[in-house]
Structures are given as structure tokens and as C-alpha cells.
């Protein structure tokens, strides 16, 4: 194997190692973020359910029942 080839091989090794490291780091950070997000959602849900709605009759949102020009993008 020529010295140049050996140098290229070292680059290849570095590239593959970097790829694995980046993948692992990415997955680890994604895991941390999603855990944080889960906690936040849980917290907010509890807070929301804790306070009862003040005006019970009108809580249902008004939903248009006729499908027309404006609804196609919904």
C-alpha cells in the first residue's frame, strides 16, 4: 500500500468514526429533548386540568358544517 493510499485510509477511518459519533450525539440529544418535552407537556396538562372551565355551556368551539370554498385548505 502506498503512503498516499494509507493516508486516504486514515481519512476514511476518521470519516466513519466521525459519522458514528455524530449519529450517537444526535440521538442522545434528541432523546434528552424529547424527555424534556414530555415532562413539559405533562406539567402543562396537569395545570390545565387543575383549573375548571369558567363558562361550561359555550366551551365547544363552533365548527362549520358546510364544506365550501374556504374549507378546502383546512
Amino acid at each position, binding site marked *: *500500500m502506498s503512503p498516499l*493510499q*494509507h493516508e*486516504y*485510509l486514515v481519512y*476514511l*477511518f476518521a470519516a*466513519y*468514526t466521525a*459519522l*458514528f459519533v455524530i*449519529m*450517537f450525539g444526535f*440521538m*442522545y440529544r*434528541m*432523546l434528552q*429533548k*424529547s*424527555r424534556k*418535552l*414530555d415532562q413539559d*407537556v405533562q406539567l*402543562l*396538562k396537569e395545570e*390545565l386540568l387543575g383549573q375548571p*372551565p*369558567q*363558562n361550561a355551556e*359555550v*366551551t*365547544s*368551539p363552533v365548527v362549520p358544517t358546510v364544506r365550501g370554498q374556504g374549507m378546502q385548505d*383546512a
Partner: protein
Amino acid sequence: MKRLLARDWWIWAVLPVMVVALYFDFVGSPNDVTLGASARILYFHIGSATVAGVAFTITAIASIGYLIQRTLTWDIWAAASAEIGLVFTTMLLVSGTIWGRIAWGAWWTWDPRLTATLILWVIFAAYLLLREWSDNRARRATVSAVIALIAYIDVPIDYMTIRWWRSIHPVIFTNQGINMPISMQIPMFISMGAMTLVFIVWMAVRMRLMRAELGVGDLKNAIRARIEGQ
């Protein structure tokens, strides 16, 4: 240790497998007789190809599942798998062009195999782009499922290109067995295993994030309904 366990310890299981794969790719295997050291590119190349194929197959199966059962879990499976499959297809194309430069003397040729893989990449990139442009969850899931099934047609075609047509791409897995010496099969299968493990862990993490996103969406709707109600 307990702290480590609580922090989703299973993700650490990937690291030793990665190290073993790297060891066998670069130290524990001989140089190829004709290709020399450049054959070492192929271990990752084949691993990425396997994972990409598996990932898109999971997307297609999950899309069928969604169309039958209409539960968003199937949609999450399809989307996460397509995303990761696209990343591995990118790795496949990049490692393939580097190897092609050494073995064939050109970065890219319009060979059937290469063309089919590039089409696959473009179609699934379009699929993922389209997912971002729709806001209604159920409609997005249905359209995406149909599009994924249309896009999946290219996967078997891509797999068979080098067997049907005269292609310059080498064929490793044939009807007569594996076209490779044992000493090179070991690193190949270890790389394949490592890549598959990365895929599984990535899927788990990505799907968890997608579920969290769904939770945020639900919360947003609940808050909006409450504000509009008051």
C-alpha cells in the same frame, strides 16, 4: 448507576457495537486482492443499503397499516422510518460515489443501479417535504400513506436492477450464495448489524419525539378550545 438507568441507558448499548464494527472494518480484515484498501468502503456501503431497504419497507408496511386501521401510531412509524431511511440512502450514495471514483474512475455514471437509487432518494425526499406542508393530521397521514406506497415501487426495482440488467455495479448476494470470502463477510455482517442497531435505536428515539410532538399539538388544541370557550 441508577441515574444512568433512568436516563434511558439503552442508548449506550450502541457505542460498543460501533467500536467493534470500526475495528473489524479497518483492523480485523484483510485488504482485497484487486480493490486493495478501497474495499473497506463497501462494508458501510452494504450496511447502509440494508438499513435503507429495511427502513423503506417498514414505511410501506406502516402505510398499509394506516390505511387499514387509521391510527396515528402507524403514521408515526412510517414517517420516522422514511426519515431515517433517507439519511441512510444519503450515506449509501456518498460512500458509493467515493468507491466508484476509486474502482471505476468516475464519481458518477448513469448506470441502472445508480439511477434507480438516486430516483429513490428524490422520491422519498419529496415524500418528507410534502409531510411538512400539511397541517391536518388525518389528511396528511392518508395522503402520505398513499404517496409512500407509490414511492415504494422503486425499492424492489432498485434491488433487482443489477440482477436484471447488465450493470457495472457488483452483485454480492446471488442465488449461488454470497460472492465474497469469509474474512470479508465477517466485517460486512458486523457493519450490517451495527447499522441495523443504530437504525433501531434511532427509530425508538425519533418515534418518542414524534409522540411528544403529538402531545404538544393536543395540548395546543385543548388550550385553544378553552380560550375560545371563555
